[in-house]
């Protein structure tokens, strides 16, 4: 593969076209972008090939994967040596010791890992050593080895190879361009040589020590000889060559292109493993900072709700519990002149008594309120002043003192709303609310004259069960109301529909009745006295048993006919000496006198020879007859027959044509004389309610219109009907 950076504009363009990318102008500003694009495309291509290989090797052993991968890397690769050597300055010895100590699985993973380092280390290792030499201490490397082995054990062999692979990529925090890499290797070449020698001396023993057990274990796992031999050759490469790194370095220099391409593939792959990389850093190097933050957030979240709950309960407790101190007590001394004990202030000496009274009656009040709210709504939710006195009187018989205590307590109750004691009128019923309670002492006093004042706890703290019942009861009530509303709406709808249907039904009945009446009248309308007594019509239509029940409909039908039926006239006629209301059938004149056939009804004006309406001699043998056709006449044969019947007996007619468009009948006679006869017979006659007019038509016009008409007789047209004398 070629180095993307060094491509010329044209090459870059052709490369992109190869990948099916649309042609773009490569300019100074777009060049970078296009290079990036090409890189991505190349990576994708390689990636696709790689993933394919991985899938196919999924069922094979780990070593198979690594070896197959190695096989094409081997050739193209060469970069890793400088990194490997450098890394070995600090962590590698540790790693070697580690490997010798751990189990075979560990060793295997480490081995693959180290192999991967050979392969992929070309990415970034120099940078790691520069940046991470302090943080990446031998100890952390050790830790990492542990974690790697731990991870790899429970997984499948393939996954362990993946992991090691990810590790190797994770060593490079940021992708390094191949050009940079090359430069580093080149510049550090001299130093690298020295380092390689040191490294080879240090690690000479380790691969040789590890290789025999590794190969034996892998031998069991890979039965494929080819894979085995390939791997063996790699293994033998590692231990045998003391100057292995140096060699590979040389190979790398020869194979720069391949190395570059390979580096790119790994760079492309890096993002995929970045999360593994991250988790590794956080779990081992970075500590559990992320976890800590989330735990702290969670605990703060919980703490917030706990505090909220505590505060809520605290508030509730404050509301319910009455602290003994902290009452607002209006002392009479403070108010000066307008002090009225028992009205707007109390004396010091009376405070204790009043508070005691409050403590005495409050449980009783709460008890009453609860029993009213929960058990029995017939009990009164309040204590009247008299009842208070009676209650107190059991212990103390000075009734006036108690009265005074009560007044003082009332004053205090107004001043201390947190006592929850309200003074209420007793005559508004048991269902008390905040609105009913007195607002101040004056209202209370004015009410006291003549009425009894009650003391009540309006909003008692009801037991849970009771509150639950109340809620359920309320919901039930609400549901009932809603249900009732819906039921009412439904019933209303039903009723409306029923009424509508009933109206329609009765109307239908009336109409059918009217139709029957009209039928009866029409059928009996032909007689000499064509009227019928109304009652007789009813008796004809309705059977005897229905007459009573159908009377309403009958009346409606009669009314309807009187108002809306024009063909029937209601009049009073004397029938057999008795006057009756009768219906006379007037009928439909247009219907009754519309014979469909064409008939000649008579002559409108004189057309005999010499009259002003006819010409002295006929100019042509052709006639044009108007007024024979109605708009809706569709039977030309009938019209033709009518025309011929009228005149064919007196003259010789050659042709008779009918034109639907102009609504005219054209007549061609044998000669002018015949035309004159026909003219006199047709002109000025009534035919089916129409006046017929006839004109002479020029022969050329006639021939134009009817080119096929015969020029001369003998076959003259004859009428089917016998001759009839129309003149009468």
């Amino acid at each position: 593969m070629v180095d993307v950076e060094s491509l010329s504009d044209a090459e870059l363009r052709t490369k992109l076209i190869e990948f099916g990318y649309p042609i773009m102008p490569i300019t100074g500003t777009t060049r970078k972008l296009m290079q990036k694009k090409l890189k991505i495309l190349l990576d994708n291509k390689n990636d696709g090939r790689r993933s394919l290989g991985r899938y196919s090797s999924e069922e094979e052993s780990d070593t198979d994967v690594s070896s197959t991968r190695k096989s094409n890397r081997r050739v193209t690769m060469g970069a890793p040596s400088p990194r490997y050597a450098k890394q070995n300055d600090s962590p590698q010895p540790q790693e070697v010791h580690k490997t010798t100590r751990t189990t075979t699985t560990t060793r295997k993973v480490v081995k693959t890992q180290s192999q991967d380092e050979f392969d992929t280390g070309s990415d970034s290792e120099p940078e790691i050593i520069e940046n991470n030499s302090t943080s990446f201490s031998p100890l952390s490397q050790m830790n990492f080895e542990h974690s790697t082995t731990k991870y790899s054990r429970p997984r499948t062999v393939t996954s362990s190879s993946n992991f090691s692979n990810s590790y190797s990529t994770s060593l490079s925090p940021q992708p390094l361009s191949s050009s940079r890499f090359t430069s580093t290797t080149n510049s550090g070449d001299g130093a690298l040589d020295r380092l390689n020698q040191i490294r080879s001396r240090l690690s000479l023993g380790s691969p040789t020590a590890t290789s025999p057990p590794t190969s034996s274990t892998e031998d069991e796992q890979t039965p494929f000889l080819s894979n085995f031999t390939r791997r063996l050759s790699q293994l033998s490469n590692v231990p045998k060559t003391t100057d292995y790194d140096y060699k590979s370095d040389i190979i790398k220099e020869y194979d720069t292109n391949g190395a570059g391409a390979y580096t790119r593939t790994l760079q492309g792959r890096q993002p995929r493993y970045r999360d593994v990389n991250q988790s590794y850093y956080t779990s081992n190097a970075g500590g559990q900072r992320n976890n800590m933050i989330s735990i702290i957030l969670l605990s703060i979240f919980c703490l917030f709700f706990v505090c909220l709950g505590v505060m809520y309960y605290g508030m509730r407790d404050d509301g319910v519990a009455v602290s003994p101190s902290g009452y607002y007590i209006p002392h009479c001394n403070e108010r000066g002149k307008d002090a009225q004990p028992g009205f707007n202030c109390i004396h010091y000496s009376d405070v204790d008594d009043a508070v005691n009274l409050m403590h005495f009656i409050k449980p009783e009040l709460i008890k009453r309120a609860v029993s009213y709210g929960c058990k029995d709504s017939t009990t009164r939710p309040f204590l009247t002043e008299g009842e208070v006195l009676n209650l107190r009187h059991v212990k103390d018989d000075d009734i006036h003192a108690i009265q005074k205590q009560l007044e003082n307590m009332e004053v205090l109750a107004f001043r201390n709303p947190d006592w929850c004691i309200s003074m209420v009128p007793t005559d508004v019923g048991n269902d008390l609310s905040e609105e009913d309670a007195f607002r101040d002492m004056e209202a209370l006093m004015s009410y006291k004259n003549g009425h009894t004042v009650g003391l009540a706890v309006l909003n008692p703290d009801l037991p849970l069960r009771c509150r639950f019942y109340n809620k359920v009861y309320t919901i039930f009530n609400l549901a009932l109301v809603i249900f009732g509303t819906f039921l009412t709406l439904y019933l209303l709808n039903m009723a409306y529909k029923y009424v509508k249907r009933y109206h329609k039904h009765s109307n239908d009945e009336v109409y059918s009745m009217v139709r029957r009446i009209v039928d009866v009248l029409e059928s009996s309308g032909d007689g000499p006295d064509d009227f019928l007594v109304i009652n007789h019509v009813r008796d004809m239509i309705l059977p005897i048993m229905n007459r009573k029940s159908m009377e309403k409909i009958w009346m409606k039908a009669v009314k309807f006919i009187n108002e809306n039926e024009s063909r029937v006239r209601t009049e009073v006629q004397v029938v057999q000496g008795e006057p009756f209301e009768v219906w006379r059938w007037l009928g439909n004149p247009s219907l009754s006198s519309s014979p469909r056939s064409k008939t000649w009804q008579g002559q409108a004006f004189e057309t005999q020879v010499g009259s002003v309406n006819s010409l002295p001699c006929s100019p042509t043998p052709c006639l044009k007859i108007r007024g024979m056709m109605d708009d809706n006449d569709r039977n030309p044969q009938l019209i033709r027959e009518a025309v011929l019947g009228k005149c064919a007996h007196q003259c010789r007619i050659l042709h008779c044509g009918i034109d639907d468009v102009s609504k005219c009948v054209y007549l061609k006679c044998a000669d002018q004389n015949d035309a004159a006869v026909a003219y006199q017979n047709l002109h000025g006659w009534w035919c089916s309610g129409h006046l017929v007019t006839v004109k002479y038509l020029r022969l050329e016009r006639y021939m134009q219109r009817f080119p096929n008409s015969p020029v001369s007789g003998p076959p003259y047209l004859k009428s089917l009907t016998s001759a009839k004398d129309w003149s009468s």
Partner: protein
Amino acid sequence: MSSTSQKHRNFVAEPMGDKPVTDLAGIGEVLGKRLTASGFDKAYVVLGQFLVLKKNQELFLEWMKDTCQANSKQSSDCYQCLHDWCEEFL
């Protein structure tokens, strides 16, 4: 695009003339400075680049990122702005 910013509407409303690069939607002071530093001092220069990239959104966003480290919101705002302007006036 649910709604467009006032800046976007202002830019798309008229020919760009000699407007500075900061008049483009999504280009603030900082990005404007960076673009000016890399030679894109006028809106029409950015338009030129936009057109050279054949109005390709992906490439333009990438270019914005490269040239002035614009984030995806800024660069897509700018892209939308130029795109709409072209629809209107080109």
